[in-house]
């Protein structure tokens, strides 16, 4: 009887070890787990970022990595499902990987913040840090903030503030259109808040939520925007929901500005194409034209290194800043213990690729960083995704502009 159970155990052992993805005997590296969707309809998110991280790690490791060791990425597929991400988290902590990184989906982000803090509270000897590089919901570093989460991307409120600051003075009527889920609703809320604070002269003539990913034909929305005689549409839509909106606007001959937050996301320029000229703006963390306009030769070289063999553009400067700051924190802490690295990381000041000062604020673990408001136009040095049009920087919201108050009351671990 025992032999039967023994054999079954061996079978499970093989599966769970293999499930770990990497044989345990790999050379001595600092492993960073990367949880994102790699299969199913949302696979394009994880797939694209994996290439970007490959390129970034090549530079960071070339600059000496941390503690003399190289960084190694261990991908886990969460299929954009919170439950799958938490199962992957268990596999990560089993292999004693000290860092977990996630860049797509606020629903998965919220699950990981909660999962990591509970895991650390219950397993003080095997703690892990959550590096949030893409879940943008403002709550994650406010009401739901946590000591073990470091967010290396601007939250929705920072982007809204940057967007409103970049609005030209002649815009007096705006129409808000967002997706009907957490991200879209927080953009709606923060955009109104900062419009009232910075631009009381602007009148919000329309405020609309549309079902996420379900609208096939946007012409009805275009009619409403036309009827409201708005000059600009402010929207947090991305991918399909943005491309169809702009296509419908062009088809119906509606010339109005589209001030968006995520039009620069991978695939956006290709899908919108010439339709976006003179009417589309976005809030991006970086763009190949930025170093060219600011004459930063090394940043331009780094960005061109990417463009040489990809049709997409490099715009993930915060990812590079994240690894650079992480490496410095590990060196300062002298180990990869989550608590030591966290203490070293919070409050750290650094300069990003372009040379602007950035800071990992101590009281909410939110990276304070600059944002660029850019418009889609022809007279740029580098076009986006070979569409002939690129992002021309109109306004730079500096780190000081975007240092916004936070309501985070973080529970700090005792030991």
């Amino acid at each position, binding site marked *: 009887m025992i032999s039967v159970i023994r054999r079954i155990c061996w079978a499970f052992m093989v599966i769970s070890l293999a499930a770990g993805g990497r044989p345990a005997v790999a050379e001595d590296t600092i492993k960073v787990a990367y949880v994102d969707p790699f299969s199913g309809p949302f696979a*394009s998110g994880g797939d*694209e970022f994996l290439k970007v991280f490959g390129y970034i790690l090549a530079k960071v490791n070339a600059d000496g990595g941390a503690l003399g060791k190289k960084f190694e990425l261990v991908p886990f597929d969460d299929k954009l499902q919170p439950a799958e991400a938490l199962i992957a988290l268990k596999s990560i902590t089993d292999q004693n990987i000290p860092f977990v990184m996630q860049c797509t989906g606020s629903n998965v982000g919220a699950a990981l913040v909660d999962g990591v803090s509970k895991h650390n509270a219950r397993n003080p000897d095997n703690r892990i840090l959550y590096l949030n590089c893409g879940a943008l919901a403002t709550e994650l570093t406010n009401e739901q903030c946590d000591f073990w989460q470091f967010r290396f991307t601007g939250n929705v409120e920072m982007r809204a503030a940057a967007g409103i600051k970049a609005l030209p003075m002649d815009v007096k009527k705006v129409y808000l259109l967002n997706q009907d889920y957490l991200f879209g609703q927080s953009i709606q809320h923060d955009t109104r808040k900062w419009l009232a604070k910075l631009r009381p002269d602007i009148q919000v003539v329309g405020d609309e939520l549309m079902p996420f990913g379900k609208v*096939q*034909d946007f012409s009805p929305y275009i*009619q*409403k925007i036309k009827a409201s005689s708005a000059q600009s549409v402010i929207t947090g839509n991305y991918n*399909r929901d943005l491309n169809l909106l702009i296509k419908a606007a062009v088809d119906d001959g509606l010339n109005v500005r589209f001030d968006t937050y995520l039009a620069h996301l991978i695939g956006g320029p290709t*899908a919108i194409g010439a339709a976006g000229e003179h009417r589309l703006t976005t809030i991006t963390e970086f763009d190949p034209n930025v170093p060219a306009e600011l004459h930063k030769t090394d940043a331009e070289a780094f960005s061109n290194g990417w463009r040489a063999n990809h049709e997409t553009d490099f715009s993930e400067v915060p990812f590079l800043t994240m690894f650079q700051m992480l490496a410095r924190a590990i060196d300062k802490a002298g180990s990869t213990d989550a608590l030591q690295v966290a203490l070293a990381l919070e409050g750290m000041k650094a300069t990003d690729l372009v040379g602007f000062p950035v800071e990992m604020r101590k009281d909410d673990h939110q990276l304070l960083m600059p944002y660029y408001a850019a418009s889609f136009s022809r007279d740029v040095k580098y076009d986006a995704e070979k569409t002939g049009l690129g992002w021309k920087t109109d306004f730079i919201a500096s780190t000081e502009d975007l240092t916004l108050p936070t309501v985070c009351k973080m529970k700090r671990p005792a030991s």
Partner: protein
Amino acid sequence: METVLISVLNGLVYGMLLFMLASGLTLIFSMMGVLNFAHASIYMLGAYLAFTASQFLGFFPALIIAPVVCGLIGAAIEIWGLRRVHHNGHIAELLFTFGLVFIIQRLVQMTWGMLPMAYRVPPVLDFPLFSLYGVNFPAYRAFMLLVSGAMLLGTWLLLKKTRVGLIIQAALTHPNMVSALGHNVPRVFTIVFAGGCLLAGLAGVIGGNYQTTEPGMADSMGPIVFVVVVFGGLGSLAGCVVASIIMGMIQTFAVVIDYSISDILRPLGVVFTGDTLFTEILTVPVARIGALLPFVMMVTILFFRPRGLLGTRDT
């Protein structure tokens, strides 16, 4: 006033796009009883094939090639796959199409990559045909109406007026008798399935550049197509047309209606306060739930009339 007229026109265009997709499924679903979940995937294939073909040969040759290729793919699926599964029952057929969805999606991701394709409306059709009260009506939408109208007429003529059509109609309800009369019913099934996929491919060619061509487009069109087919009624082409146009109109006009149930009740002195789930449901404007209305309508009609609007036999 003008917004109503334009909305009607847009509703019609969107409705006819839904019809193009649903007509193929009506044939397959009612004829072979196959709940073909892979129908939207064939629609995606049609869009991708049209994109590739139009790069080398231009849009109009692609308009012919892509649907034909989809039809051949459909025939292959039926002969090597569905035919062997037919005797295991409808659920087995449905699971077969489930498996297909996963495979087609991965194949598309492998061959064309993950990013949206730059499949655009051909320049020759990319101009405003006319403008009504300052709102342009693009020529491409008129072209869509033309193609879907031709498709409706063609399918109707094929079914009602030709010999093959009569055999298909007969085999719809009495396959055994039709085979007793010497017709090769399995081949009829293949023709019908291939025809359904051809229609889906054609809808893909037209819909692909009207919307965006990306790996996720199959999932977004999947459920709404079933609603149209079932709401219109099984086995009835007329029902399918009427249902598509109704759904198109609903989606278009729901967005215009901005008030919610509580706004309607307010004049009657009923005001909702408090922060509960029910107040949230009652205060949600119709515009936000526009995409849900088709499902609400499907559930209600099936509850009272399982045959659907103009269905010929019980589902």
